[in-house]
């Protein structure tokens, strides 16, 4: 009988390419929770995330022959998932109206700065209802544009270095850094806003 417990993702994927029964199912089961959570964060709702989840594994199946077995499976899978999510969001959000004259909050130097130490982030052991926190995180993420949301989630879910993100997204290293800075700032500010709204209720 097949026992996948001691096999790496790459070994299971190779077994799938060699047509071992159950190998592909094993990969789907392994990534079910992590990828679905990532996609729910990206898309903003579970139903859309499930659609992209299926599309992602279909794409992986179709592109199996092109996978370089000397590389890691997880970043490849997440990059495909992020591409699918981005395409879907793009279709959803095409033709947005931008109000140029909308007010921009500025500090004295002309930009709004976020100090992370002033942001009230609950620690994991803090007594906050998980479902409520989840909802607030989703609300905060919805305040970020897709590009910043993507870089923030890819970074945290995969724990990738800047160089790896740059390679996966095909963008320059400097761009990754500045996007990551902006993404953290934007999320911190958005979190502050939604969590304050909660305490004021």
């Amino acid at each position, binding site marked *: 009988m*097949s*026992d996948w417990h001691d096999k790496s993702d790459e070994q299971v994927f190779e077994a799938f390419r060699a047509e071992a029964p*159950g190998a592909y199912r094993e990969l789907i089961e392994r990534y079910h929770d992590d990828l679905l959570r990532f996609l729910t964060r990206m898309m903003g709702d579970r139903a859309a995330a499930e659609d992209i989840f299926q599309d992602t594994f279909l794409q992986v199946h179709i592109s199996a022959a092109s996978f370089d077995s000397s590389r890691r499976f997880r970043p490849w899978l997440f990059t495909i998932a992020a591409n699918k999510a981005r395409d879907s969001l793009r279709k959803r959000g095409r033709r947005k109206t931008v109000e*140029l004259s909308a007010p921009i909050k500025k500090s004295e130097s002309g930009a709004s700065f976020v100090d992370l130490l002033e942001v009230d*982030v609950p620690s994991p052991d803090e007594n906050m209802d998980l479902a409520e926190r989840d909802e607030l*995180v989703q609300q905060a993420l919805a305040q970020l*544009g897709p*590009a910043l949301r993507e870089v923030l989630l890819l970074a945290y879910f995969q724990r990738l270095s800047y160089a790896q993100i740059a390679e996966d997204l095909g963008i320059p290293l400097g761009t990754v850094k500045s996007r990551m800075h902006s993404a953290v*700032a934007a999320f911190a500010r958005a979190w502050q806003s939604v969590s304050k709204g909660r305490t004021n209720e």
Partner: protein
Amino acid sequence: MNHDEQPTITPELSEADKQAIDQLFEHGLATPASPDPRQQRVSDLLSLLGTPVQDEAHRASRIDLIDVMTRRQSDPRDAEVFLTPKGQDAVDAFVDAGYQADAVVAQHSEHAKRLEQIGAMLTDGAKPEHIGREDLVISTLGTIQNHIDSEQAAMQFESQRGFQLPARWADVVSIAAMLLLAFSVVMPILSGMRSSSQQQLCFDNMNQTANAFGLYTGANRDMLPMATAGFGPTWLDVGTTPERSNSSNLYTLIRNGFAGLDDLACPTNLNAKTGEPDPDAWDWESLEQISYSYRIMPRGGMRATSINEPMRVVLLADRSPVILRVVRQQPVIPEQNTPNHSSSGQHMLMLDGSSQWSSSPVLEGRDNIWLPRPIETLIHNERVKRGIEIEGNEQPAGPTDAFVGP
């Protein structure tokens, strides 16, 4: 910032902004004597692009400003917020440390802790993902299987339809000659290796299962596997009520330890369940997980030694395409091969323990292994008006009538 990398969402100006720009152009891009706030803002924006570059410092700040405005147009949500310089250094240090706050140098440790907490909020979630887990796994595998099926159907259609090349006959002949040469060398090796290795695995499964049947009947007074005595009447009902589905009869071999899930998993079925079986399971969870169809058992069961011609009784075969189509509410094609093995044919395990490969589901005497004799007779007499209907209560007409499912 590389502007080429911005999302390709096409922003559209509001009508009021469009009018303000039109008015500015009408005034030769000069701000009116008493502009309204919108005109002033548009004017300020456009003037950014015309600012002369005086030195590197100005140039850098101008690029920053353009960057901010460009990002604002790409997505207004992201434009106006920045980390403090110390916060930026802390993010870099945190990423370099592999997202571990403990591994960050002391001067950034407070910031890094915050960043770690943000990460926990983003990645941990409230963990609702286990809900519907098996459903999503199965539907994902089903999506892939449907894709494979439609690809195969399209290939079959194409091969029947022929093809047309926008080329001269001389080119076609040369290309065909080269392809023929290449195919004659490569295809027998690749295709033969692939299909023969899959077929060999299936043959091995058949032999292994034949042993399991032998051991089971030996331990159960020659009775073939049966889940419960009250089996029926809708043997199509896979995974829900064990006293009904015919697959739960076959699963009895697994439940009682005579065979493993892997022994009953065809390598060409992506949905096949493998590994350690759930000790409480009575059946596969869905029709898609099943690789082999078992002879439909009569109520009260069937004794292996009660049949005179065991070599003519089909006990097990690659999964039935007819039952798959019935459950998916698609029209039944009686002479279709199993979806296993690229629809090229099916293995059959006979009651005497022998196994064979057949390129057609129709045996001697026009006995179709996917259908009971009464339905075969209706088809033969062209009395099927509204398509074949199978409800899950049909039975083989006699001991030698081949009929497997689900």
